């Protein structure tokens, strides 16, 4: 899958989305690879939800073009039936029970898998006859997950599907997603703040920050794209000057810096400089990059310490 021909299920070309007072997306060009799981990451208000709404035909971009399986999704039933967008805070008719929502989904999604839906209902312990409005936040999220997975839509988009779910239920979601994805590969887009948890599931990552693409790459090469170097401050600073520094924090005479370079190269270079080198996790990299852009904007020399670990 890493090699060979890969085509895009979704292409976003030069898309700008402006609301009355602000620009949610600013000249975004990207694509979602077919049959891959892509993580859509970014801070609150970065434009993730807007992007998902555009891809699902819920909104029309101010300018630019969106193509899903080759056509514009907006008001296009032939494309829409192949898309399942599980959005945060989906509204259900007042008197609908869970079983009613599933009945409706079974009517509308051509690839609906009723057996899968039934087994997910058991897994998440969902009461079919309970009114959806009366469910807890987590159970409502679980209903979305059941619909999203059982739709088996060629493009399935989840907007923070785990809200209110406990750790066990989230693990269940990841397991079932992987199992079903392995059985019938499809294009999955997941927006999330729980980078650490979801990172192993992702084949690609799209990081957006204030409406712009900051990172658009496959996760494995990202894991090998930055190292965390620690050692005496002067040595680390000297090292960082010679390479691309993403983020640094210091404590006393000690400094930790996230530097852009491959693991092998990092070991050689920093090892020679007498510094200790560790791989940088996806979460650390994402945080470092997001902080870097926000500090550039505020033109502060260094991001406040402590915020490196603080996310999600």
């Amino acid at each position, binding site marked *: 899958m890493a090699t060979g021909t890969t085509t895009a299920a979704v292409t976003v070309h030069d898309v700008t989305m402006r609301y009355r007072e602000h620009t949610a997306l600013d000249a975004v060009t990207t694509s979602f690879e077919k049959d891959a799981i892509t993580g859509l990451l970014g801070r609150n208000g970065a434009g993730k939800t807007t992007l998902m709404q555009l891809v699902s035909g819920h909104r029309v971009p101010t300018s630019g073009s969106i193509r899903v399986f080759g056509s514009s999704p907006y008001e296009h039933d032939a494309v829409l039936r192949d898309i399942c967008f599980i959005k945060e805070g989906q509204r259900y008719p007042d008197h609908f029970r869970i079983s009613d929502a599933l009945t409706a989904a079974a009517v509308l999604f051509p690839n609906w898998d009723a057996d899968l839906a039934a087994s997910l209902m058991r897994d998440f312990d969902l009461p079919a006859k309970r009114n959806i409005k009366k469910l807890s936040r987590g159970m409502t999220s679980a209903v979305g997950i059941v619909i999203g997975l059982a739709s088996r839509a060629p493009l399935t988009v989840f907007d923070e599907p785990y809200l209110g779910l406990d750790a066990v239920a989230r693990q269940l979601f990841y397991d079932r997603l992987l199992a079903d994805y392995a059985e019938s590969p499809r294009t999955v887009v997941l927006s999330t703040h729980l980078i650490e948890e979801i990172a192993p599931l*992702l084949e690609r990552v799209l990081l957006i920050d204030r409406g712009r693409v900051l990172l658009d790459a496959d996760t*494995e090469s990202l894991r090998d794209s930055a190292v965390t170097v620690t050692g005496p401050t002067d040595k680390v600073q000297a090292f960082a000057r010679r390479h691309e520094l993403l983020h640094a924090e210091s404590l006393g005479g000690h400094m930790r810096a996230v530097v852009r370079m491959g693991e092998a190269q990092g070991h050689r270079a920093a090892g020679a400089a007498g510094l200790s080198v560790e791989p940088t*996790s996806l979460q650390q990299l994402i945080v470092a990059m997001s902080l870097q852009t926000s500090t550039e904007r505020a033109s502060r020399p260094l991001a406040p310490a402590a915020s490196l670990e603080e996310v999600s």
Partner: protein
Amino acid sequence: MNEDAGPIFRQVAAEIENAIVDGSLAEEAQAPSSNELAAFHRINPATAAKGLNELVSDGVLYKRRGVGMFVATGAREQLLKRRRSEFADQYVRPLMTEAQKLGIPARDIAAMIDEWEGQ
């Protein structure tokens, strides 16, 4: 798999190599499939496949069409040879770095190793 330990496909490959080295995955035995690895480690199947493919290109595993991946004959020997060559870099270097920091001379370390052997 460990999120803080670099690319996951390398961790997958290393784990299978370990199994071959310690004998739990015998030569000519079938290696786990990418979907099995994905489910077990909760990782993307494409990532697991990448780990397996790396082992195939190293000659550690080979593909049987429509059946799966198998451990090549001689794979264990090949891995042992490579690991022995990497031993100094992976284990002796950090040992010596730490020893230098603590001011332990190399001959003392040699003595410690002799003592260890004697136990």
